[in-house]
């Protein structure tokens, strides 16, 4: 059986000021997996996502989403940036942030209307944030802010979701709520790519994993490749003790 790939990355190299952050990455993400990208700080995890989404220009290589360049497939893709990448003091409300997820399908100039508002309310409901819809975003806790970001991605109604550390700085109940939504999305046939830090939870949360440290170390099903050998290669220290179940 031939596998369908949601994302294909070929020979991708990204550099900041001529210093390579990602080196010659080949990666094929099968459709319908919930994939973690793991690696130490500075491994280029966020950069990989940003390059796929065209936010950063690579110096070499090509990227395709369902066999076409990202530019033609924007509407199939949703993105949750790192929570810390935006200014939460920005004068806006939770529902307004979620509505931003609809801007992509609207295109330039056209404004969101009732349909978009309804979609935003549904997404807020799904992440349990409906009671806070009119709250100013600076008045939300870290976990609530992350839920709003997730709702914004849900409203994009995409096939592929990219998430940059969605569990960073959230409490346990929010983490469970988020992972349940991610698992639900995978059940619905969506592909999810998640930058993840907590190695302990990888086997429990994900079914696919990519080890990254400037170069790709390994990628594949968690059951097959999530082992001490790959962890040691990625992090450069012996992980036998850390992940001893």
């Amino acid at each position, binding site marked *: 059986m031939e596998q369908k790939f949601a994302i294909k990355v070929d020979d991708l190299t990204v550099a900041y000021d001529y210093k390579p952050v990602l080196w010659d990455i080949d990666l094929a993400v099968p459709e319908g997996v919930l994939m973690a990208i793991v690696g130490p700080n500075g491994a280029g995890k966020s950069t990989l996502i940003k390059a796929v989404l*065209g936010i950063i220009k690579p110096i070499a290589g090509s990227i395709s989403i369902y066999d076409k360049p990202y530019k033609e497939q924007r509407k199939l893709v949703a993105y949750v940036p790192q929570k810390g990448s935006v*200014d939460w003091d920005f004068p*806006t409300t939770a529902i307004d942030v979620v509505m931003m997820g609809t801007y992509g399908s609207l295109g330039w*100039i056209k404004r969101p209307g009732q349909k978009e508002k309804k979609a935003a309310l549904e997404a807020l409901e799904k992440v349990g944030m409906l009671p806070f819809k009119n709250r100013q975003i600076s008045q939300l806790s870290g976990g609530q802010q992350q839920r709003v970001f997730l709702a914004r991605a849900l409203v994009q109604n995409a096939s592929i979701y990219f998430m940059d550390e969605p569990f960073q700085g959230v409490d346990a109940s929010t983490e469970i709520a988020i992972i349940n939504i991610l698992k639900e999305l995978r059940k619905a046939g969506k592909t999810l790519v998640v930058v993840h830090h907590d190695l302990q939870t990888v086997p429990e949360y994900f079914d696919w994993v990519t080890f990254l440290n400037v170069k790709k170390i390994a990628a594949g099903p968690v059951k097959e490749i999530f082992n001490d050998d790959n962890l040691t290669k990625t992090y450069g220290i012996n992980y036998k003790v850390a992940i001893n179940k």
Partner: protein
Amino acid sequence: MTNPQIEIQLIGVVVAMACAIPGVFLVLRKMSLISDAISHSILPGIVIGFFITQDLNSPLLILLAALTGVITVVLVEVIQKTGLVKEDTAIGLVFPSLFSIGVILIAKNANDVHLDVDAVLLGELAFAPFDRLFISGMDMGPKSLWVMGIILIITILLLFLFFKELKVSTFDKGLSAALGFSPFVMHYGLMSVSSITVVGAFDAVGAILVVAFMIAPAATAYLLTANLKKMLLLSILFGAFSAISGYWLAHILDASISGSMTTVLGLLFFGVYLFAPNKGLLSVLYRQKQQRTEVSLITFLLHLNNHSEENERHINHLNEHINWQKVRSKTVVDLALKNNMISISNNIVSLTEKGKEFTNLALKYIMTNKDEKIEYMKDDFFLFRG
């Protein structure tokens, strides 16, 4: 009011409104200083444009000068990208250099150019009504009113068309790029509009004060609202209000018009900074005091909760024991009494049922550290209400 008086106020209002709109986005993008840089470095553009056109209000001059403004932004970014200096240093390097080129150009040609450094820095609104636009012999009003009016209309039009794009690219650059709204295009679009506005306004209010017109209304509005549309509206209102009241202040003081307008802008910000409902200084101080009392109350109730022995709950003993000054103890005891959380008999304080319930909830709040809980508690227990 005489005709020129009305015209001056009108120009002031239009300038203030046109500056306030890009100003809001500059403030939100933490780029306030860029407006300062642009306003100075357009000088060489204006001088060269003036050599060519001999008219301060010519569209060609405005575009030429605005181009210098955009070049400033590019230069700042280029220097910053070297990684050798930070953004503020890059700004500090670029605009004085460009500005000084303008100053030299003016000085070298002082004899045949009707442009002096004072007017460039401070503007002269009082003279604006004398430079009039004639179309086939008909007096159409002051030229600068037309120039700024057109700039204002274009700015408002662009704001209406690209409001959502401006918002998303200001709030979340990454998402904006992923959605296909190039942050690069939005950034340079905003920089171009800001440059054109500054060039148009500088004739009236000068290179230094135009910065105040861009930043102060936005900064003031930011303290008052958590809604971008309201922030824009308030900024425009504050700008217009300062322009008119500034004019009359100048009239009374017999002082510089643009200087007076800026003074009003500063006073307005100061007033709002003190009295704004949520972010204002007084409101913050009041809230902090309330929180202190809140914490004291919970400490006091917990102490009562932890000690059943009477000697620990004697009213005089409490004073020494919790180590508070008399006034504070009295405030706390009064608050607890008012809310029926304690009862006092024979100078022995005991918790009421309500007090016990509140203390238990407060304990839970402290253990789970959930902010929202205490808000409901305050509603339930009428604390700090009425």
